[in-house]
């Protein structure tokens, strides 16, 4: 009995030590590399039927880990807590279609962009929605996004509804609670192809509100950032990136 307890204690302490110790494969790159993503942002990150995180972001993250010769450990995290959780050390990098913005740069560092995006309105086909006349309209967007920030400043007399997940906003647009959704054009493009999105279309101009989509790391992890940048550049050069891109879009999104 005593032996068993001693064994369990030893096992427990060993477990503690192994998680506490950060093993570096290369200087500055922890192994495993813990990647934070979300899971409600198809086709960039979503949870498939088997409960696995999938999507463009995830493929990019996996390819980066492979190149850095580290194991990738994916962590699903609600969007509006994704930066606080990075700062709290729950993972080492965010690969979740995060826009590079000046506000975010105050708290995290970004790698070079890994794709480009523009923000668009989507509204009912033939509904006469006009982005120039937002007064009195109800616009849906995801909380803690560049689209939400833009609406906070420019929506005027429109009512802005904030969603935790992009997919929840689709439900409310389909239910006609919303006149329009303001969100990433590539993500909307994907939704418009679905059955639920059939009655809707992009309306108005495309807004360029960020410096592209990047991977966020903690400010002190500069070496990790540089390694990720080098790996990203290599993937772009040798066609790995193009292959991943082709799985999701018939055109380049870089």
């Amino acid at each position, binding site marked *: 009995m005593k032996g068993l307890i001693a064994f369990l204690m030893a096992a427990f302490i060993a477990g503690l030590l192994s998680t506490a110790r950060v093993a570096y494969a290369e200087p500055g790159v922890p192994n495993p590399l813990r990647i934070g993503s979300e899971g409600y942002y198809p086709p960039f990150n979503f949870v498939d039927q088997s409960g696995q995180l999938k999507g463009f972001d995830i493929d990019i993250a996996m390819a980066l880990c492979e190149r850095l010769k580290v194991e990738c450990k994916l962590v699903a995290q609600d969007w*509006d807590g994704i930066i*606080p959780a990075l700062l709290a050390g729950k993972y080492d990098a965010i690969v979740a279609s995060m826009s590079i913005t000046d506000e975010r740069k*105050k708290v995290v560092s970004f790698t070079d962009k890994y794709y480009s995006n523009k923000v668009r309105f989507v509204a009912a086909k033939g509904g006469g929605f006009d982005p120039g006349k937002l007064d009195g309209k109800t616009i849906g967007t995801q*909380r*803690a996004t560049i689209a939400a920030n833009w609406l*906070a400043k420019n929506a005027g007399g429109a009512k802005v509804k904030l969603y*935790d997940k992009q997919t929840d906003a689709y*439900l409310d647009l389909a*239910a*006609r609670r919303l006149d329009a959704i303001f969100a990433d054009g590539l993500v909307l493009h994907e939704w418009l192809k679905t059955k639920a999105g059939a009655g809707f279309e992009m309306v108005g101009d495309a807004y360029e509100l960020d410096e592209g989509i990047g991977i966020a790391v903690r400010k002190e992890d500069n070496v990790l950032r540089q390694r990720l940048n080098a790996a990203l550049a290599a993937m772009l050069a040798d066609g790995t990136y193009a292959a991943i891109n082709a799985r999701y879009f018939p055109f380049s999104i870089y």
Partner: protein
Amino acid sequence: MMAALHGMAAESTAQLLAGAWLTMQLTALAMLVGTTLAFPLALMRTSRHGWLRAPAYGYVFFFRGTPLLVQIFLVYYGLAQFEAIRDGFLWPVLGEAYWCAIIAFSLNTAAYTAEILRGGMLAVPLGEREAARALGFSRWQEIRLIVLPRAVRQALPAYGNEVILMLKGSALASTITLLELTGVARTLIARTYLAVEFFALAGLIYLLLTLLIVRGVRLLERRWALPGQAIETVPGTRHGDLLA
């Protein structure tokens, strides 16, 4: 810089207070409707007739057995899936996140409050019911004049608990786009990344609201206390000793 910071602090505070006001509305309305529903439910649960007991049992079982988050999603996103509902006369109500939250919260708290009330009713001394019957009270008179007044008094402390749980449960309204206290805090955090600061502030406001509820319930307990059963919680008094 300082002026800008002060401006931001003032604006954030105003937004948090607006959120707290919405939280209070949601909690108060849900408790009002839920408690009203709880009386017939509790009476049905304690009925002699199986056909009255069964549906009440089923109701309580369903609403206690599923998460509040699931219930609020079913009411808000679920019902809106049906064309018939969107075209129906109830859409002006069901289309609004505010009323969806109130409906879900009311139905949920009705189940718990009914059980609290049932507990209070079962704790009414049998002798008092027998006395009512000996005096020739009808069954309805017995319930209305003897059982319920006693049951409500006995259920009050547990009911206070339920109000507090509802207050905190109302945070789930933020998942259906309502900017109640938690929703405002999350939005402010999204803008500033001051997660600890704003959650702590929101927590403090919840704490103050809870204090109000605790005080309110105690006031009711005192007011409704039967002679000789005055609730005194000051240590050293007879009742305080009993509690200790």
